[in-house]
């Protein structure tokens, strides 16, 4: 199956195969070129076309029959090669001879293969090397104090662009004869029509602007310079986009792998199930997150390539659309997930229990945090307050959530006896759920021989999941009692003023006398 084109050749209508059409148009263009020195070329071409039409209609039996490339070849054999149209005439012969002898290359700018102004491509042709090497030299020179830029601009101005076929051929170093011109025309065939359209447009414009011709040429030069400068700028941006896009892809990929190794995969313990309110597995969420962050840089790279080259094969349209759809789904997924997650953390409930603390005036209270015997085997990070949580198995192999979100506050009272208040808190979808969770927080302390040992941790059964469980311990001491806080309380009473904590960081390991709303250091060196 072949595509055909309908043509009007000298007033006759023909169906012609696409390849045959290209062949024919190519032939006519070559013929036209071979008669450049002739007067009335268009009239001759019209006659030739009329004859070709006649020959076509002799060769087909009905108007339904299609002109094939075989027929076109036959016609070309009858009509002769483009050279045959060239009537020998002295002047023409001489010029041809001159050109044929002059196979020396000339330096032109190659605008067809230009990256910026075609200087590199032109130099490449002239020295017979790939333009890439010339460009690399430019880049090196740019780093060498920017001489490359200046040199480039100078060469740009000095070297003429290769516009005509003859110039293009002498740029390539080929002798200028009709076969070569024809070859050149064939090569550029794809652009021939476009080029012709441009020329006619230009001619029309010139007619319209005939009066403004002089000023026009100046502004044309200026605007073409500016547009090339703009193109250069665009290309620099394109390179930057590609670099940053690739960098982003690499870093996110690496970070996801390290996260997968150190952060999430704790063997035997499924932490995600404690936070996760949905039944979505963590690896799935990881993939979704990866998709969300890795697709935008891909598009950035694509955009960069697009700026460097008008057509990029890096991502075709279908791939782009699919990527965009995948990305949108991933983002939507994350949003839904986050909302569900937030819903399960919506309500917060507190459970408070206050006990007497047998500390009176002039008693000294030693305050310290105590470790969890089982858990401290598993981690170095004990006696440190954090919002983080871990899962561990107790001696009965029950899975427990272990957290160290313990806030310690010291206050004073006018009563004669001290007290200790333990307030547990948790979050949940409803207040009831939150309250149930708060009640299920396990937290304890011991008081023995004036020493108050507070747990540095809270635990709760794994069934209750992690819902921001926390404990606030308020130790209230009567006036004129003395407090001696162990150094390990440091992080637990690191509070903002809003918590009204009398004990300040740095006052540990000192005997502090309780006054109303302040602590007086008894053994500090001023």
């Amino acid at each position, binding site marked *: 199956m072949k595509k055909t084109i309908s043509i009007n050749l000298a007033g006759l209508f023909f169906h012609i195969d696409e390849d045959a059409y290209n062949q024919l148009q190519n032939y006519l263009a070559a013929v036209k070129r071979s008669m450049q020195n002739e007067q009335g070329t268009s009239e*001759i071409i019209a*006659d030739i076309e009329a004859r070709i*039409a006649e020959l076509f209609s002799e060769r087909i039996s009905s108007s339904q029959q299609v002109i094939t490339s075989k027929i076109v070849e036959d016609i070309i054999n009858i009509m002769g*090669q483009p050279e045959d149209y060239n009537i020998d005439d002295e002047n023409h012969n001489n010029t041809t001879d001159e050109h044929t002898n002059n196979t020396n290359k000339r330096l032109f700018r190659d605008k067809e293969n230009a990256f910026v102004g075609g200087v590199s491509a032109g130099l490449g042709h002239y020295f017979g090397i790939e333009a890439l090497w010339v460009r690399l030299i430019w880049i090196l020179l740019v780093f060498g104090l920017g001489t490359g830029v200046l040199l480039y601009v100078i060469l740009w101005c000095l070297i003429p662009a290769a516009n005509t076929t003859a110039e293009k051929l002498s740029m390539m170093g080929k002798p200028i004869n009709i076969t070569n011109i024809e070859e050149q025309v064939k090569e550029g065939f794809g652009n021939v029509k476009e080029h012709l359209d441009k020329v006619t447009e230009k001619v029309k414009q010139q007619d319209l602007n005939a009066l403004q011709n002089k000023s026009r040429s100046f502004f044309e030069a200026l605007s073409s310079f500016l547009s090339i400068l703009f193109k250069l700028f665009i290309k620099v941006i394109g390179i930057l986009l590609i670099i940053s896009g690739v960098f982003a892809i690499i870093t996110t990929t690496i970070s996801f792998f390290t996260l997968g190794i150190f952060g999430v995969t704790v063997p035997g313990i499924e932490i995600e199930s404690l936070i996760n309110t949905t039944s979505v597995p963590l690896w799935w969420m990881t993939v979704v997150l990866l998709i969300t962050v890795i697709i935008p840089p891909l598009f950035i790279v694509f955009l960069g390539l697009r700026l460097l080259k008008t057509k990029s094969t890096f991502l075709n349209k279908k791939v782009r659309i699919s990527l965009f759809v995948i990305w949108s789904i991933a983002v939507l997924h994350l949003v839904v997930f986050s909302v569900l997650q937030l819903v399960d953390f919506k309500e917060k409930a507190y459970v408070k229990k206050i006990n007497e603390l047998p500390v009176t005036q002039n008693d000294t209270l030693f305050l310290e945090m105590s470790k969890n015997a089982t858990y401290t085997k598993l981690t170095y990070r004990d006696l440190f307050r954090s919002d983080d949580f871990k899962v561990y198995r107790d001696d009965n192999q029950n899975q427990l959530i272990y957290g160290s979100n313990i806030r310690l506050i010291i206050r004073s009272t006018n009563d004669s006896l001290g007290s200790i208040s333990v307030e547990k808190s948790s979050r949940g979808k409803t207040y009831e759920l939150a309250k149930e969770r708060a009640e299920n927080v396990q937290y304890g302390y011991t008081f023995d021989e004036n020493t108050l040992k507070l747990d540095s941790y809270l635990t709760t059964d794994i069934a209750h999941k992690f819902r921001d469980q926390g404990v606030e311990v308020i130790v209230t001491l009567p006036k004129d009692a003395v407090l001696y806080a162990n150094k390990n309380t440091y992080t637990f009473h690191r509070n903002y003023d809003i918590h009204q904590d009398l004990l300040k960081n740095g006052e540990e390991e000192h005997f502090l006398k309780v006054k109303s709303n302040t602590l007086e250091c008894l053994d500090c060196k001023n």
Partner: protein
Amino acid sequence: MYRFVKILNKNMKLENTKAQMRKGVLEFCILSVLEPKDAYVAEILETLKDAKMLVVEGTIYPLLTRLKNSGLLQYRWEESPTGPPRKYYGLTESGKLFLKELNTTWNALQSAVSIVTQNQTKQ
């Protein structure tokens, strides 16, 4: 004709020479074909090709236009029974005179050439 001779002196390659000879007398032949009656391109081509004067058709088109531009030929459009209108070429008055001149030159040239070549073979 002067052109023909000049070209003969200039390019002595066989193929070239043959082509130049043919092309040189082509103008003369075209005018001769058109002498009895006007004709359109296909008819001129037929006559010339039958006489093996012409190998490829392409050569004739620039020649026709050039002869027309120099006022030796003129053409008129004539409806055709099968297709679009055809260009019928004919000799102008100056074309007829020119052809007469060419005829005499050609005859002189022909006899000169035959004398020269016959002398050569006799020797």
